[in-house]
């Protein structure tokens, strides 16, 4: 998947757990909690959706790497590439 595809998938899952967010106005560096107002339950639902979509384990210790859409795209690309190599 290209970074553009990954970003689109991430935003789809994000707006599914937080339907009141407008996909068009979400910035790459918007922070999930402080800028977009996700609480811990919303964030866990987002992680669950990404786990389901990509089959990645996403341990809790990696949560900071999903803090913004830009960071998440980098993280997902890295994990998927690592998974493909394995």
């Amino acid at each position, binding site marked *: 998947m290209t970074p553009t595809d990954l970003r689109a998938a991430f935003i789809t899952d994000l707006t599914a757990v*937080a339907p*009141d967010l407008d996909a068009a106005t979400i910035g790459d560096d918007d922070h999930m909690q*402080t800028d977009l*107002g996700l609480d*811990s339950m919303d964030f*866990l*639902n987002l992680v669950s959706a990404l*786990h389901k979509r990509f089959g990645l384990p*996403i341990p809790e210790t990696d949560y900071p790497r999903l803090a913004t859409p830009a960071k998440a795209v980098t993280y997902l690309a890295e994990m998927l590439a690592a998974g493909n190599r394995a």
Partner: protein
Amino acid sequence: MPSLGADMEEGKLVEWLVGPGDKVAKGDIVAVVETQKGAIEIEIFEAGEIGALLAEPGQTLPVGAPLARLGAAEDVGVSAPAVQAAPAVAAPCIAAPPPPVPPPAVPAPAAIGDTVLASPAARARAVELGIGLRAVAGSGPGGAILLSDVERHVSTAPTPVAQGGPKGKPGLDMAEMRRAIAAAMTRAKREIPHYYLTHEIDLQSAQDRLAALNAGRTPDQRLLMGALLVHATVKALAKVPELNGRHEAHPYTPSAVIHCGLAIAMRGGGLIAPAILEAQVMDPDAIMQAMRDIVARTRAGRLRNSEITQGTITISSLGETGVDALIGVIYPPQVALVGFGAPRLKPMVHVGTVQPRLAVTVSLAADHRVSDGRRGAMFLSEIDRLLQEPAIP
């Protein structure tokens, strides 16, 4: 139309989920009603068979107005008495001193003495829109005017339609929600002599246990600290049961079951505090599942009337990004509110040395008419004790 809070005067029927002839069991969801708390699923209060639906979707009805006829399952149609749908199941939740007296059951007809045939729903809607029924073509039996005829007349009429007043996103009216919060909180501060206690709890052991548990679980099975906080609070009520109940009758009697309300903040502002029903029998996994479910349905605007009218205690938690402590206001007619600040790393004395430990400040706002500070302190200490050895694998 059930009362979903004593400040509720009317509700709008959005959808029927049953039809005439359907058999229903107590607790089945039969309809959806729009209120200031969002769209609420209405549960039937007893078993039977749906006789006739008396209200149509889109119709706004006063509290107490019949929505449908319910016959006993065996003798349907044979002079089954008209049973008012869900009369007092819903003990008023927000503000309730006088017992609610059902207002006249049927909305006043559009034109008394008028010979125009029209359904009650059509008449009510016509009044709402300020249009005369004689101008509307009827498509019902004998040319009677139905609600759909009125709606069609309005949509084809050249005059502006906006008479009913603009409604926001269906199911959630922010101004109404703000009004409901104001009514409940004003009543709480006027009637309930609050006392407050706070206590700092070392969460590090619980956090370590949680991290170890979650490391072996897929995201959809993971537990949040919030579920442990709710579980410990519910369990601690066994030691101080008088903090769990609804102060509606004298003398006050605590509730045997725990319907644990959760204050859920809406991102657009405002909050709703639906309850996890029968929380006293749940382990942390069951609490977590119930929290996920109720948060999702709160955001989607799909709560059930029992969840918003039967809470016996409320927990308000600031989550991970909040501030140190929250001193709450009791949600009447409940008698206690437990507040959790944001857990934060703090220097704490642990086994004789100062260490960075995860700490949370818990607070209790309680009704001094039914409990005292000593009992309240025992309750917060019990929450602390339970969190030192959380009931997780």
